[in-house]
């Protein structure tokens, strides 16, 4: 898919929903779990609150705060009219009163995720006819050629980051120090951000943000390494031990790898996302872990990858989204097992005509860090 094809699909959605314009809003709080419609429509990752005004016909505008960031926006988005603003809601009010939104039937995207001091005003000022989240994010469910290339690069950086983790993680080091060093290292490789969850312990309850805990010999170290390259995230989920791993841990990790491979095998165009989750669960259920395939032990077996659209959504039993070519998402069995605690195992995949292509060069395997 190209960006122009995506835009055409969004405009077709506007016609179908009888919208004259879409206002996409984002408050500048970038997060892996929340989609960013401004990034989808412009490719611009903003410092502060920003908006895109997309009329059904004609030129789209990008409203940027702080105003001094407008040059960067114009450089990033040469086909958009860039408006420098000190307050995004005021700029949109002006567009409603005097500009492209005057008298328009407006759909708004991103409102639910936007902070209240902006969203509350927009809700009153724009009087949107409804949410345009579906129109914008569904059209971005398949990544553009450029986004796929960025996901590949982000994956390459993630794998190098993991190699660095294996190289430097040692007992006596704090989780925070390791996480900071990895974030810095992946930046040296070109990642502008990194959703890096990392923690360690003899038995982890979950993967969580690092804290000041000092790592110990025998710890199981779990890491979701998620660099962003030019606004596109990719993730690898990995588990390593500080010192030798027990035979039981190795055995259980192999089970997760098998489950992941089953999930990857089940992902193909035309299949519902739920089938991927079911394939993973089937492997675990066959080994007697059926009760651990549901909350509170596990909520999902993967997810979409933003920062733009996070479609196709979670790899979960209740997600009936039909998979199509060009989708990029995570498949990760990441599982709490009673014998080992929480383990991470997962790859980012690109859905092609032939199935799910892992973007990684090396699939997840338990690593024993020699001390």
């Amino acid at each position, binding site marked *: 898919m190209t960006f122009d094809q995506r835009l055409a699909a969004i405009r077709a959605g506007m016609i179908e929903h009888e919208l004259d314009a879409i206002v996409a809003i984002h408050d500048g709080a*970038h997060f892996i779990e929340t989609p960013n419609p401004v990034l989808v429509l412009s490719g611009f*990752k903003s410092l502060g609150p920003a908006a895109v005004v997309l009329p059904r016909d004609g030129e789209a505008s990008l409203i940027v705060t702080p105003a001094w960031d407008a040059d960067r926006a114009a450089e990033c988005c040469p086909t958009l009219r860039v408006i420098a603003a000190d307050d995004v809601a005021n700029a949109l009010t002006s567009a409603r009163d005097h500009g492209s939104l005057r008298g328009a039937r407006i759909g708004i995207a991103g409102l639910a995720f936007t*902070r*209240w001091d902006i969203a509350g005003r927009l809700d009153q000022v724009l009087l949107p006819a409804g949410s345009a989240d579906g129109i914008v994010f569904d059209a971005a469910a398949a990544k553009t050629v450029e986004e796929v290339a960025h996901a590949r690069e982000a994956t390459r950086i993630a794998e190098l980051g993991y190699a660095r983790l294996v190289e430097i993680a040692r007992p006596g080091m704090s989780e925070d120090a390791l996480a900071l060093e990895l974030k*810095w290292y992946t930046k040296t490789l070109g990642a*502008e951000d990194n959703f890096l969850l990392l923690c360690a312990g003899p038995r982890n309850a979950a993967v969580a*943000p690092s804290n000041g805990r000092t790592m110990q010999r025998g710890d199981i170290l779990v890491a979701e390494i998620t660099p962003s390259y030019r606004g596109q995230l990719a993730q690898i989920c990995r588990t390593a031990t500080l010192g030798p791993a027990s035979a039981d841990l190795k055995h259980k990790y192999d089970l997760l790898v098998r489950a992941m491979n089953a999930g990857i095998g089940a992902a193909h165009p035309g299949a519902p996302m739920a089938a991927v989750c079911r394939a993973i669960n089937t492997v675990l259920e066959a080994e007697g872990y059926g009760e651990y395939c549901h909350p*509170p032990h596990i*909520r999902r077996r993967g997810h979409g990858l933003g920062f733009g659209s996070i479609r196709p959504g979670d790899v979960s039993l209740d997600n009936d989204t039909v998979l199509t070519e060009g989708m990029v998402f995570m498949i990760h069995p990441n599982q709490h097992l009673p014998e080992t605690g929480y383990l991470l195992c997962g790859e980012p995949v690109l859905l092609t005509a032939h199935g799910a292509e892992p973007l990684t060069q090396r699939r997840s395997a338990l690593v024993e860090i020699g001390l």
Partner: protein
Amino acid sequence: MLAMNPTLLIGPADWDPARFPREEFATRAAAFWRANPSATGAIVYGDRVNHAELAYLTNFTPKLEAALALIPRQGSPQLLVGGGANMLPAAKPLTLVEDLRPLRHVGKTVAQWAREHGGDAPVLIGSAFMPYALHQEFAAALASKIGDKTAELRRLMGRKSARELAVLREACATLDAAIAAMRASQAAGAGVTATILAGEQVANRAGAQDIRTLFSLDGGRTLRPFETLVERTVDPLQVYVAVRRLGYWTEGLAVLAASPHPCAQRAGTVLREAVSRMQADARCGEIARGIAQADLALHPVTARIAGNAIGLALEEPPLIAAGCEERIEPGGVYSLRVGLSDERGHAIVSAMVAVRDRGNEVLWSSPEAAR
């Protein structure tokens, strides 16, 4: 000043009772209750981007998902942490609050807590930062309108305690070391990315909780965040560096140049004069006007806002901006910025200033403004 918000906060944020003992937080809470005599409790919201108020009362930095503190006037507070029960062990070291619970069923939970702690009289803090959807849930759950007292709490936060000042001084030392490392790296012929990352690494290794940077590729005319690798050298290189330590932010702007930079020196002279006017009870608008009257072309980055209070948030009120009637408070710490931009060049310099009852203390300044 605004820099790019990361998707996850990585870095040491554990509560350090030796630096900020329980009495410090008790004093803060007592001052808030004195200022709000009818309040029976406080509901405090914080997330990755906006959590200064939450940190002020609980020391908690929400690294991943949002959090709510429920603080009764009498009795023990609760901290509701996003991400589920499995996130609680990782959150525990970050706060002095002992009662941690997962943040779920927000409306019902908050309404019940409000009933149990004095009915209709709790106050809200940070409600403007809530995502639209969460705010709607609050509004539906709390039958009566609850007043937002964020501004009142911020007034108390403005006067820094001795402990806070000590940490801010340490943060300024880290800032200085980071900029010195950048200067040395640039002088040694490093490219832009390597220069910036040299400073970031020094800050990380000095124990910084966070570091954010902006830089210029066009001689200081514009600032930009890290987007991708820039291997070429740039001289002069305008940089912005924000360093956070034990929760407290400091920031600085510097021009890295092989030879004297006349524009930076002119800006330094203006800044020095502005710093001398940073006295208790001075009007913020007057300080901004004094800078504007220097008869030099102001830089777009600093033309509208020349500074602000700083502490647990990078930008705290009041703003040092034209027309601002608020006064500089004794006990406050401020970031003051002067940028000049004309056909001869561009430069932004800055200072961190602690204002006392009489006089002030410069905690850090760009070398061009140093006496």
